[in-house]
């Protein structure tokens, strides 16, 4: 895929993203998992027992 971007990101901005991505990505991943788990448990709780 050709990257159409006409902006130059700049090496400094790129390296900062690289450094942040690992840490913030892990936080994001963890939060998403927790949110899914909470949604799952809530659904289970809301369901009337058969």
């Amino acid at each position: 895929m050709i990257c159409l971007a006409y902006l130059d990101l700049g090496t400094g901005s790129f390296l900062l993203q690289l450094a942040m991505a690992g840490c913030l990505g892990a936080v994001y991943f963890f939060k998403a998992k927790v949110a899914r788990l909470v949604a799952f448990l809530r659904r289970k709780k809301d369901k009337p027992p058969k």
Partner: protein
Amino acid sequence: MNHADTSVVSDGRHPASFRDRSGFVFHRQGRLYRQVNESYRSHFDQLLSSGLYAELTAAGLLVEHREVMEPPAGPQAYKIIAPRSIPVVSYPYEWCFSQLKDAALLTLDLQRRALRHGMMLKDASAYNVLFEDAAPVFIDTLSFETYAAGQPWVAYRQFCQHFLAPLALMSQCDIRLGQWSRLYLDGVPLDLAARLLPRRTFWRPGLLLHLHLHARQQRRHAADRATRRRAAHISRAGLQGIVENLTGTIQHLHWRPGGTEWADYYESNNNYTDQAAQSKSAFVAECLTRIRPATVLDLGANTGRFSRIARDHGAQVLSLDVDPSATERLYLNLRAEQSKGILPLNVDLTNPAGGLGWDHQERRPLLERIGAELVMALALVHHLALTNHVPLEKLAATFARLGPALVVEFVPAADSQAQLLLAGRAEKFPDYTEEHFVAAFARHYDLLATRPIADSLRTLHLMRRKSP
């Protein structure tokens, strides 16, 4: 609509639409079109086929468009689209704090949703956002590109310069620094913002990362070329994490209006008794019923009391005020009410934004972008004439350029508010009389009605512009 942007250059291309190779904006017979170039074909198709376009337009985040059979305006055309027109073109340096903040959050929301659809925003310019009523809308349909695994967010630095730096400066240093957007069209340089922000901002993780460390990294790698970037890979979760972190950082930037000159005008320092206020509102309502304007320009709108009356008479209102607090309050109130029909902007009429950018053409002068069927200048003339020494003839000429009808309030020198403006000044204003005011405005307008405001020395005038 009278507010509409009708700037045209000789070939119809919009003078600000030249940077992006994906396409451009052009005008033809008074209509706005966007040409999509062949080079953008796969990205444009994905925007539509992925469901991203439908999701964004349904949520009111992106301007809708129609594909049309219009002949192209340049080579390599893939499609021509006609976007829905947004009545008023406003720029970041005319937005209040919360408008800029909402535009920033909208941009991040688009990036978040785009990533979920396998796309990303390739630019994050504040000029891709306009305001309609009290809500921002993204106007650059060609800003989305296919996401390739591992690539960084190329617009990250631009986002920080256009949004984060000015918001941080406005919130942590001084609200007036919002005007720097007018000086730095590609956003406030991060090293400049980092140098001015107080030390305490190091303790805010978002500002530390995206501003202070970002500025330092830029400085350190200013001479490096892209060689080191190739091997590196940034995961999609990493990009999403950065967007979430930026969102939190922006959400935690606050500015409390107040302390500026006009914020409490109607609450505490109003010069009107109940009877005077009612008398003024009644006359304004009568004028609106008589003129029936589709658009109204409220100059010196303050808390928007008269803008609301105009809106309730069915007009689309543009409310301008010089005070950032007044604009902020009006915007926040309208947003909370999810109110339609009024757009507040922060504008200094004594120094309106001129033509900026390349050839003075990229960002157009304010007075070319605004206008309405009825102009309201209530409790304004004495400020412009006495504080700013603008002759009454010049006021009349400028008001007449902005619209064919005018409701204007004359505040005589003997009025207590005018006395405050004149206090301690050696200068007298011998020409500042109602007689001279009427004569000065009569050069441009025919007087339709005059009414003294009950319980005050002030008078209201409804006028119609003379045909040339």
